[in-house]
């Protein structure tokens, strides 16, 4: 607490039409500390950061920065940069058509000319010192997403920054890369940079942070030292009610055994993106694909749904041979699929919540049998109530909703079609703890009602809680299938890691 204060935000208010996104929020950042900003989706974290970085103008309040006289006004990202505030966003905000070096230096060099030689040299040194596997003159678009993220961090690090904001930087990184990032963060901390760290991964908060500020519903809950705030209490503060013990969730065990007819069977199924694999699921069963990022788990379920071009294999549903070559075929067989990337593949951003909810049902009905407006309204109302979707009205464009609520809308879309088999790929990613629990409970309820569910999540704990069978993938191949007593964290980890682990 002795450290010098580098950034103070006092009484910050931000209103959006019909919503108060931030109400009288204070935030203090000290030199050489890592400060976690926590809260559910829609709590106002992103808004606070966007106010700080000049993306949104604030309606009330003041920002003070160490070394600058008086109240600073930040009206654009450039202003923020000039004040020594650098940001790395969850979505990569670099230009894929420029080179790696340019992405690191564009917008912040002096003069009118571009000195390619110096730029490439400095970029090369920085990349080397941070151990980032990219070449300065490589086009950024030809790097993997993880490397692009690290280039963004390298850019932020190289600026003479006092305040570094990391907004969900770890969501597309694997464990090794996360560790590298943490090393970097500690290094910067030692150099006296104040770091604001936003993440949904609780373990990561405890791994690196010094302080935690919690927001809820646009209001400040409080600022705490990490050592004074155990994980359970943090979650309580975030969701504002005593957390129901998650272990209370009872798994529904589907009947298993030889005589049970599987609902869905695939033999040697392969697509342009996935290698041939066998898979089956029984009625009312919840199973899951697990493995590291890029192990082929998403590609496998995409093949089941026909999202990528299917190249081979036999598929049976309820014992009958069927041909699934496109999402439409899969839907006709009663399969629903909630995609991994909500923004890219899930929501139709400009359409209303109502249209988004009814979309899949409408497609099932067919092009020539449009649902009436009254029907659509009714269905939308029903599911907004059932899933407790927070929206101003069903006419609100879905893009105005918070991530968790968008996800619920997509869920509603599939539930409305009453599928017999639902595939959920990372339904809880980037979503607050409260909604996560709701979704897990919902999955179990659905399976009790007889729906089969395939569940994918990066959080193994979550999978263990819901699935009665786990299929483990490595290097785009299925390497194990775990049931019953084998479903322990240690065992799953071992199988994922393989012989070496």
């Amino acid at each position, binding site marked *: 607490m002795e450290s010098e204060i580098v950034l103070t935000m006092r009484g910050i208010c931000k209103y959006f039409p019909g919503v108060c996104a931030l109400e009288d929020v204070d935030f203090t950042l000290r030199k050489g500390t890592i400060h976690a900003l926590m809260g559910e989706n829609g709590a106002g974290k992103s808004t606070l950061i966007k106010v700080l970085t000049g993306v949104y103008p604030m309606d009330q309040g003041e920002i003070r920065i160490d070394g600058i006289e008086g109240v600073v006004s930040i009206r654009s990202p450039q202003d923020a940069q000039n004040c020594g505030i650098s940001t790395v966003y969850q979505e990569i905000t670099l230009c894929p058509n420029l080179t790696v070096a340019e992405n690191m230096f564009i917008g912040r060099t002096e003069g009118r000319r571009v000195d390619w030689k110096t730029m490439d040299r400095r970029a090369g040194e920085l990349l080397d010192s941070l151990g980032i596997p990219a070449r300065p003159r490589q086009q950024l678009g030809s790097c993997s997403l993880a490397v692009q993220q690290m280039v963004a961090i390298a850019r932020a690090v190289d600026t003479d920054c006092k305040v570094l904001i990391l907004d969900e930087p770890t969501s597309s990184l694997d464990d090794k890369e996360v560790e590298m990032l943490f090393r970097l963060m500690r290094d910067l901390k030692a150099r006296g940079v104040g770091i604001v760290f936003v993440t949904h991964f609780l373990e990561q908060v405890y791994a690196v942070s010094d302080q935690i500020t919690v927001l809820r519903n646009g209001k400040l809950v409080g600022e705490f030292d990490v050592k004074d705030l155990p994980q359970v209490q943090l979650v309580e503060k975030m969701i504002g009610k005593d957390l129901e013990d998650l272990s209370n969730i009872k798994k529904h065990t589907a009947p298993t055994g030889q005589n049970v007819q599987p609902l869905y069977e695939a033999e040697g199924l392969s697509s342009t993106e996935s290698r041939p694999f066998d898979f089956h699921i029984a009625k009312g069963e919840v199973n899951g694909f697990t493995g590291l990022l890029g192990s082929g788990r998403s590609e496998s379920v995409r093949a089941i*749904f026909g*999202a990528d071009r299917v190249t081979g294999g036999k598929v049976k549903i309820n014992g009958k041979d069927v041909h699934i070559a*496109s*999402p*439409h075929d899969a*839907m006709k067989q009663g399969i629903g*699929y909630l*995609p991994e990337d909500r923004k*890219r*593949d*899930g*929501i*139709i*951003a*400009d*359409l209303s919540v109502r*249209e988004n909810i009814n*979309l*899949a049902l*409408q*497609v*099932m009905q067919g*092009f*020539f049998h*449009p649902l009436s407006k009254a029907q659509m309204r009714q269905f939308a109302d029903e599911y907004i109530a059932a899933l407790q979707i927070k929206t101003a*009205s069903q*006419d609100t464009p879905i893009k105005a909703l918070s991530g968790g609520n968008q996800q619920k809308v997509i869920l509603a*879309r599939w539930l409305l079609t009453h599928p017999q088999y639902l595939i959920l790929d990372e339904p809880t990613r980037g979503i607050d703890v409260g909604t996560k629990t709701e979704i897990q409970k919902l999955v179990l309820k659905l399976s009790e009602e007889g729906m089969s569910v395939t569940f994918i999540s990066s959080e193994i704990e979550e999978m263990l809680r819901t699935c009665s069978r786990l299929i483990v993938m490595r290097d785009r191949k299925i390497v194990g299938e775990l049931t019953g007593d084998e479903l322990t964290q240690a065992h799953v980890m071992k199988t994922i890691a393989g012989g070496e682990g």
Partner: protein
Amino acid sequence: MLKKKKIADFGQLLIPLVALAILIIFNLFRDLSFFSIGMKVNNSGNIVLTGNLISIIDSASELAIIAMGMTLVTAACGGQDISVGAVGAISGAVFVKVLQGMGNITVGTVILAFLLCCLATICFKLFNGTLVAVFKIQPMIATLILYSCGRSIAYWINGDATPQLNSPVISSLGMTIPGVPVPTPIFAVLFVGLLLFLAFKFTSLSLYTQSVGINKGAARLNGINPTLIQLLSFVLLGVCVAVAGVIGVCRLGQLNHKTLLVDIEMDAILAVAIGGNNLGGGKFKLSGSILGAYIIQMLTTTLYAMKVAPVNIKAYKAIVIIIIVVAGSPVVKSKVTALVNKIRTKRRASTIQKGVS
């Protein structure tokens, strides 16, 4: 709540409606006789309605029809088709070629010729559509090909001459049907409009088109075939272009492949934009585009009535267009809304103060 929604629905049409109202008021003050509608016996001895208003609605017909098709392509593909004028010329050329080939012009042969026109334009539009939907080429680029060589194809079909079509059937299609005082092209607009209205009513065309336009990938994962929807939008545009081309030929009773529907692509895109539709695709309102088409024609006719030389009209049109799009620009809109809100809160604050004191 309900009232708010209505205002929001109205929002997109606000600017075009205001523009239309200003044009009308301007003409009211300028010359009241601008609005007079009369009856007159035309050259072929039919009683027809006359007057500027009738002529505006009549001569905007081709534009309104093409603007409707353009709206669908814009919404589904996120870009515009700039070859509609050239393909319209091809439609006219096919129409004339078929009728000349068959020798006599009767209702039957005209219908047959029209159907062949539709077939031809749909083929050309499918070529455009395939480039866009299958080869993922930007619509404007994909249609640039036919834009630059479409009129040459029309020439190639019919040679250099400006072939004439003299028949009462043609003149009743291009002007008026004996006994009906309203120009026939107006019925063509109603016909195409009704067709699309029914399509929206009895299919999910609107929802599918918007979904594909906003997020193609997500639409596909929800079982929609984006390629088919984009091709469909081009097919519908093809039909619109065929109708417009045939009207254009019938109006003059002759074909000039160089001037038939010339520059209509620009006006059609303008109509779509003036109607408040996003040229980047997604959500759309057909009524906006139709309104836009009539605004453009009303402006042209007003300028004619003000004795502006036809060749100079473009300059004045440009100025009015700039005014309309500036008024409709998101930046100006948000500035105006902010100003209105400020005034409102001030007023509210002052009334509250009054209440307190």
